[in-house]
């Protein structure tokens, strides 16, 4: 790994000042970025750690019933919080392993937008709002393809606001070595709307499966998905699963999400 200057600001404003250097990079829990730097796929001259910023940590219930999770909140803290809805708890409990969950953060996961990461599916399915130091970005506008987001240089995810669905489920077909999703399906059932987000499957990263949403809005049952066809075009194909297999799994895992929504 190439060396860098390490900065650990205690406030968001200090972090923004530390980011003025063009080559500066934000560091969340480091569970993706540190391995990436070891491979020299990233070599920032300055690393600005967000882990000492207390104002970016924590989970709170808002007056409108939504839940806000600080960008620096670890997966372990989300998994252990009794206010969180079931799909999001399942998701947080099954990211990586126990040690990774003690370091990795929701802000880091969303900002990285790995095409097989779990959190993007929850954010997109629930219609969450990503709150940065500059603006609020709806999840529908946030994810812009594999490892691409609407974030601009020097923008920090301060928190994420999740509307709470009455029923939810996250179903992950796991790649047992990496613990990432080969296919992950997040289902959110609001009173008037069902939203389905798929991660792990598509080359463009997380996406909404609109046909399934329409079918499930008409009739919330596994059977209503029977006639839908998922094409392998645009699906990821690699040594773990072919694009045909991923396309197949999208429907299988969505059915499981319908069956297990709670």
């Amino acid at each position: 790994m190439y060396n860098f200057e390490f900065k650990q600001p205690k406030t968001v404003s200090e972090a923004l000042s530390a980011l003025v250097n063009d080559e500066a990079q934000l560091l969340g829990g480091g569970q993706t970025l540190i391995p990436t730097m070891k491979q020299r796929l990233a070599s920032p001259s300055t690393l600005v750690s967000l882990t000492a910023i207390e104002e970016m940590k924590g989970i709170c219930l808002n007056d409108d019933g939504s839940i806000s999770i600080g960008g620096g909140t670890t997966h372990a803290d989300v998994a252990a919080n009794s206010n969180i809805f079931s799909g999001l708890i399942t998701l947080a409990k099954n990211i990586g392993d126990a040690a990774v969950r003690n370091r990795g953060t929701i802000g880091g996961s969303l900002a990285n937008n790995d095409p097989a990461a779990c959190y993007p599916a929850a954010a997109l399915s629930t219609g969450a709002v990503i709150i940065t130091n500059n603006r609020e970005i709806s999840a529908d506008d946030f994810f812009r393809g594999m490892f691409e987001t609407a974030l601009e240089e020097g923008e920090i995810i301060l928190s994420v606001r999740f509307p709470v669905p009455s029923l939810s489920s996250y179903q992950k077909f796991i790649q047992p070595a990496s613990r990432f999703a080969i296919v992950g399906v997040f289902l959110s059932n609001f009173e008037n709307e069902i939203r389905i987000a798929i991660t792990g499957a598509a080359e463009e990263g997380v996406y909404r499966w609109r046909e399934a949403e329409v079918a499930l809005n008409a009739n919330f049952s596994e059977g209503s998905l029977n006639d839908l066809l998922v094409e392998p075009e645009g699906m990821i194909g690699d040594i773990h699963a072919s694009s045909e297999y991923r396309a197949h799994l999208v429907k299988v895992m969505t059915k499981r999400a319908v069956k297990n929504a709670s």
Partner: protein
Amino acid sequence: MPDVKMIVNGKPVSGSVEGRTLLVEFIRNNLHLTGTHVGCDTSQCGACAIHVDGKLVKACTMFALEANNREVATIEGQANNDGSLNFIQQAFKDHHGLQCGFCTPGMVMATADLLKTNSKPTEHEIRDHLEGNICRCTGYHNIVKAILAASGQDVSRIAAE
């Protein structure tokens, strides 16, 4: 180079490190506490598992400077005060929970972390918690057995495989 200080196994320590110095490198190379192992260096294997402020982490995936002013616990601090093996280490010994022993420090630290919040884990809960700890001798059977025994559960009917 920046200075770093922390409490390791109850003792204050300090040193000068580069930004890129990993916590496991500081522990092994600066403090000469070589019980924390580097197996894969890619965050997969858990041989470097330690506790930072009481939480299980992989010391190869954290910078030393991120542990500044924090409390670190490594395998060297696990034995009882009189130097005898603690109950987890003793159970690993009694039930042959190690073969080559390379993964053992991480296994013991992960077990200590599990038993803090779950004093009587099921086999499923044990295997789930050890997801990030790889034993390349594949000796999981007796590791799980040792952890069941360490948590006071009856293992007399589990075969020694």
